[in-house]
């Protein structure tokens, strides 16, 4: 992830904005012509991403804690 964007500083409840810099599919650095839109849902930060290098689209979800389910046993 790249350096924090400056514009977010005015919103105190906002975590530091960290744009996605690399495509999770082709692994290349995302050129400016790719789209990265940040969305929030509950305590998750989602980066809706379209790589104009390989055409891949996905949501990258920032996860601070690794969680797993526990099947009934």
């Amino acid at each position: 992830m790249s350096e924090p964007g400056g514009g977010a500083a005015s919103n105190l409840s906002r975590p530091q904005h960290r744009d996605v810099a690399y495509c999770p599919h082709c692994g290349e650095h995302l050129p400016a012509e790719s789209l990265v839109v940040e969305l929030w849902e509950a305590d998750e930060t989602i980066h809706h991403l379209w790589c104009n290098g390989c055409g891949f689209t996905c949501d990258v979800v920032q996860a601070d804690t690794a969680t797993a389910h526990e099947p009934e046993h």
Partner: protein
Amino acid sequence: MLSQERNEMLTRVGPGTKNGELMRRYWHPVATAGDLDEWPSKAVRLLGEDLVLFRDGGGKLGLVERKCPHRGASLAYGVVEEEGLRCGYHGWLWDNEGNCLHQPGETDKSGFKDRVRLKAYKAEEMGGLIWAYMGPEPAPLLPRFDIFVRDGVRDIGHCMVPCNFVQIMENSVDPHHVEWLHGRYFRFINERRGLESPGFFQQKHRKIAFDLFEYGIIKRRLLEGQSEDVEDWKTGHPLVFPNMLYVGGGGLYQAQIRVPVDDTTTWHIFYTVHAPEGVDLPEQDTIPAYDFPFTDENGEHIVDFVEGQDIMAWVTQGPVADRTTETLGKSDMGVARLRRLFFEEMDKVHRGEDPLGMVRDERENEVIVLPIEKKKMGHGADFARDWIESGNTRHSPQKDLLLSLYEEAETSQTSETANV
């Protein structure tokens, strides 16, 4: 949230910008046909370029750069002649393809006039609007979407909105705003004035969806109490990429066209065709076009009508919305989808491909039928009547005639039901 770099890319429309190049692949209205009735030329601005629109003595439309290449005087003050537009300053004559036909102060044999050209763009008339194409050749066909060529009573409300066109388009993939801006907020305004508010705007959304189709994005909504076989969900209505929303219901059809004049100004056209079923539609000699107010004498937004509420929301986001400080939620997925579409289509243009929705086949272009709900939010002609009363059409010089058409439609429907 977007980075500043991407926000600039998304919103800048001048020559040489990425989105400017994309927007130049599409036809845009540049005037109403009636604009040239009183005077045959008009100064216009589109995609950050100052231009002059004119209709020459032979009836041909011309759209050329505004400054005369000779000494830079405005051709908007030119003389319209049989073959073109003559600069008022020294009389250089230009045709609608940008050729210089006459230089009165120069000798004919010098060949000078063949060495100068005026930037000229294509202009065509359709449905009471004059459309311009500013992109490379070969130009796509001017798309004959059904609303512009169908029968009905036409009405054009318009205004110049002081903000970038993209934030207006984002509003068109944001169905939730209807429930709040035109529902709760409208009710709040009207309650304080002792007035009723249209009930259908206050209905709660259960689900929204966005599907790509060959001309843009289909927007669907499912409201509380509706089943999934309603038209709002099954059919939906389209955002015609890149800058038109098509809405309607109950015999009313409306294209909301957001013309990028420049980065911070949008000419907003509400092009409506009224064609309720079961009514003999009157002939129209001229199509009324009226500029409607959205601020009062103190410069405050007028928010007691639907479009005034929208304009308040768009303009107060700033001349160009700062997307580096926004906080999007999952309900803004349509906004993210539209942005992605802009970036994908900019990329296609950059690669030398046609972007979405180019029409190059004459047969396909006879009439392009767009999907639209007939029964909007569960309502018919009453929806159309409320739309007229609570929208910018309240300023139309033919408002009473339009309302009477829907009253007649309702009477006709009632008597048909009684006869069944």
